[in-house]
């Protein structure tokens, strides 16, 4: 089973990199781009084949290491092999 973890800043947390990307897009002539937020994508290869068990285990990984829940949200996507 593969897991994809998307980590992103919570609302209200200043993301200066996202802001710089937004400014550069505007400089390149892309119009109509509002707020830009930059996050992280972490891909995991798991031995677990049961989806519920895999999700539980990846949630624990997010809480313990992959995300800092003071400033970040995470979303987990699972994909069967």
């Amino acid at each position: 089973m593969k897991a994809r973890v998307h980590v992103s800043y919570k609302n209200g947390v200043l993301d200066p990199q996202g802001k710089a990307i937004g400014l550069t897009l505007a400089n390149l002539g892309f119009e109509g781009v509002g707020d830009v937020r930059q996050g992280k994508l972490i891909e995991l290869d798991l031995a677990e084949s049961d989806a519920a068990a895999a999700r539980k285990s990846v949630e624990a990984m997010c809480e313990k290491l992959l995300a800092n829940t003071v400033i970040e949200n995470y979303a987990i996507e699972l994909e069967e092999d």
Partner: protein
Amino acid sequence: MKASVIVFPGSNCDRDVQVALASAIGGTPDTVEMVWHGDSEMAKTDLIVLPGGFSYGDYLRSGAMSARSPVMREVVARAEQGVAVLGICNGFQVLTEAGLLPGALLPNAGLKFVCRDVQIRVENSQTLFTNGYQQGQTLRIPVAHHDGQYFVEPETLAEMRERDQIAFRYCDADDGRAANPNGSIDDIAGVFNDRKSVLGLMPHPERAADAIHGGTDGQGLLNSLVSALS
């Protein structure tokens, strides 16, 4: 007083803080014990210092890996017993990641690495770490960081203010540059835990601890610890 400095892979201010602390204690550098991050045991100590640097290359988040290293379980246990813990720069990041201090440190609002002297104000001089300073005294101490933007939820910030957990705030210097170098919420440069036994700060007191550094305003922090813990 016994002091220990934790060394992570990528720490680079460990020797500086060892020398500055030893001189405050009045001994040779080897009176301050260096503890490798992979050790799970530590001798009895009165003060644990987490030094500045770029442990684990700031991978994932600054301080994230170090906060989960074997020695940190021992550091957390000692902190819970009331042993004093000081985190400087990367050490501050590690303390927030380890949950010993509230909040988190984000990339600087200006996106640049900031390396310069800043002016900070002592907001609480009634602690182990700050008793050698006057309340409201301003200090000139260098910072050198990319991820120094302190962030905490507004509700937690209100509680911290109530409990006098703000240790230092950036304040106006006479050189005309913006006081807050990194966009930290409420101009915060350093914070205590609720018991005031743990301090994390972005400025480097060990880099302003000898006349040869060009300033000695950081010495007061180390001397405060020595007088409180000896």
